[in-house]
């Protein structure tokens, strides 16, 4: 006997796989729906230049979303990512523009600071929501000290990079693919990536197996800082000049992007590809679609939230139906 060790389980065992597949597809389906709606309203935007314009801001948002995803991998949350991106914009538009070395040094220090925050959160067992909320005011304050009013200038090479027009595929799409692939490989395919995700799934088990949770947290927050830096650089490369409030909306957008992309607040359940798709969907839905629908700007934030609620409700419904089986 015993081809099936625990009778009746095989059938149930297949359920979650099916659910997993559907859940993994959900971000892609929502992106397709938003794109479909835009194409239906205004078919002419489905073109090289249309995408380049519509997805102009998708790259910095996708990078900030990945930064948030790294924090959420360890069951933490980063409420300071928006302010941090704003601060990075100011650093890039001032120091990096004037002196490449000093600017680069500052940016590296920012990443190290983020890693130190992760270590602090672990060592003192602090709630990340409190630490990062506090840090958001620190970043905001530093940014305002640096640039009290909008100004500065993005380095020429950065502007040139962000306005590069590759053949056939629009830059935002190419960049998104590249970013998603790198993050996916690093977190989902490398052997240490499994440890990082395990830190969110069962920290006790990781520690029992002899891994340092302090190191894992510091690395995850360091990665969040690194992607935050990239996000700020991409953003200022598009705008050309900086403002301390440039990244203000990014905190909530990034959290929404991770969740929309199939991530969870706890349990180390994240998806880099889903997060990037989530960021693209939100970029399109929050600015382009609502604009095409002639929804007045006053209502756009509310409409944005409604889209989020609908997609998340669909995800919960799928998960629960699976559990009820």
């Amino acid at each position: 006997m015993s081809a099936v060790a625990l009778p009746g389980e095989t059938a149930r065992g297949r359920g979650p796989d099916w659910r997993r597949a559907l859940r993994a597809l959900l971000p892609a389906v929502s992106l397709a729906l938003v794109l479909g709606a835009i194409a239906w309203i205004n078919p002419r935007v489905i073109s090289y230049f249309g995408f380049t314009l519509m997805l102009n801001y998708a790259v910095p948002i996708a990078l900030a979303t990945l930064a948030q995803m790294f924090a959420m991998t360890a069951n933490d949350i980063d409420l300071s990512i928006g302010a941090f991106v704003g601060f990075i914009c100011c650093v890039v538009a001032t120091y990096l523009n004037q002196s490449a070395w000093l600017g680069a040094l500052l940016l590296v220090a920012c990443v190290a600071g983020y890693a130190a925050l992760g270590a602090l959160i672990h060592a003192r067992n602090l709630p990340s929501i409190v630490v990062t909320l506090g840090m958001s005011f620190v970043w905001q304050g530093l940014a305002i000290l640096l640039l009290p009013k909008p100004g500065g200038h993005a380095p020429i090479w950065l502007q040139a990079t962000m306005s590069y027009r590759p053949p056939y595929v629009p830059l935002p799409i190419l960049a998104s693919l590249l970013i998603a692939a790198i993050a996916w490989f690093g977190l989902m395919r490398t052997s240490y990536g499994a440890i990082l995700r395990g830190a969110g799934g069962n920290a006790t088990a990781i520690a029992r197996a002899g891994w340092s949770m302090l190191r894992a947290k510091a690395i995850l927050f360091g990665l969040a800082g690194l992607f935050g830096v990239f996000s700020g650089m991409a953003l200022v490369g598009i705008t050309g000049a900086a403002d301390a409030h440039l990244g203000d909306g990014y905190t909530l957008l990034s959290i929404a992007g991770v969740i929309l992309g199939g991530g969870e607040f706890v349990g180390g359940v994240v998806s880099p590809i889903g997060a990037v798709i989530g960021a693209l969907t939100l970029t399109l839905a929050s600015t382009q679609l609502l604009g095409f629908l002639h929804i007045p700007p006053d209502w756009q934030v509310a409409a944005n939230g409604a889209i989020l609620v609908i997609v998340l409700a669909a995800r919960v419904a799928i998960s629960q139906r699976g559990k009820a089986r």
Partner: protein
Amino acid sequence: MANAELVKLEGVAKAFGAVRALGGVSLDIGAGECVGIVGHNGAGKSTLMHVLIGGVAPDAGRILVGGAQQTAYGAAQAKALGIRCVFQELSLCPNLTVAENARVFHPGVSGWGWRRRSAKLILDKLDEIFPGHGVSGGDLVESLSIGRRQMVEIARAFTVSDQPARLVVLDEPTSSLDEHTALQLLAYIRRAVGEGVSCTLISHILGEVLSATDRIVVMRDGKVVVADQTGAFDRARLISAMGGVESHAPRQARAQSAAEAPVQVRIRPARQPDGQELVARRGEIIGLAGLAGHGQTDLIVAAFDAAGRRGAAEINAPVALVAGDRQSDGVFPQWSIAENIAVRSFEKLKAGPLLSLKRERAFAEEWKARISIRTPDVGAPILSLSGGNQQKALFARALGSDAGIVLMDDPMRGVDYATKLEVYDLVREEAARGRTFLWYTTETEELKNCDRVYIFRDGIIVAHLARDELTEERVIHSSFAGAH
């Protein structure tokens, strides 16, 4: 058979606060030997296991591995020395795949192709231990049934890459396995032992311990009471070694017969296969016994949830719960003693729509006097009290309420002896006034305060003992399952 000594514990002692978990335990585990550890609740089995695997540092005593004394012995060092553990609560990451979980255990499995190598490592071992296991390397652990998760956890502890496997400690490894897979595991343990791997088997299923081990260590009250070759034991000797012979504390006979009193509680465990149900009449103290975590708390929670609802369970009076885990389920740490006592009775302490602080305070003062909570001021924060007095405040919360049924979820954990005696008197007094108590306890001694006792095993009621039938031996006999 046992030859070279692998692990040796000498005079290991450990206390958690006032509770002495281990009182000088010495234990030898030879290379290629399977040692069974049995004992009733609180005998010190799990503390001993955590000392073995470096999870708990002993207060006194020596740990020797391979003849070398260990200093700064911790989990990482134990693992490097080849000492592994299969935890009862499982230590897999649910969000990772089976192969990834194997990788977590083996730092050396990295670089290109780690996924494939890791999957092969764990699947080969699964094939070896549990042929026909039905697990694949890419399965997410959270999508596996609890039985399969336990199979993965067990197989993982036996896998070998860059670190050796010399001693595998198995803590209730068959608790989620069915009979067939449990037999597969026991057979594998014998094969592994034959190949020189040592095992330590902690199990409440005596038949497993008797069939799979070379030597059995019986623990009681933090000490080893008997250690002998397995062949020298049978079920009866194990049970008497675990229970010993108790002198029975006299208890005044209950005045009135409860047999005709109205039924207050009638409930069945969710998984009870037969018609056995728990019945509690007005004024009765009903004990819920058996090994810890065998469904007693679940039944208490089910009774609490069923109160005031129409369902299969019959709960005929308001209920109050005295939590066992004070810190997580009991006290409101930011509140005062008075608020902690009064929270269950706010309704009757109201003046108009608002809570009367004066009445709340008077209520708390009354209970402070009645059960002698040692504090100068009931307005002081609850955490200013000792653990025992915090527990008294929780009793006051339940007893001061309008509840006719008081559910107690092993409430005496970590409470000092004097406080316990006070609470026992209080419970009996309240029962005489017509309250009904459902009392889950892990201390067999406490069952002597009960009128009747239901014994739980694997989530179901397996025995029902009246007061005059109650002996520690009977309780242990029913708590530990027979041979598989």
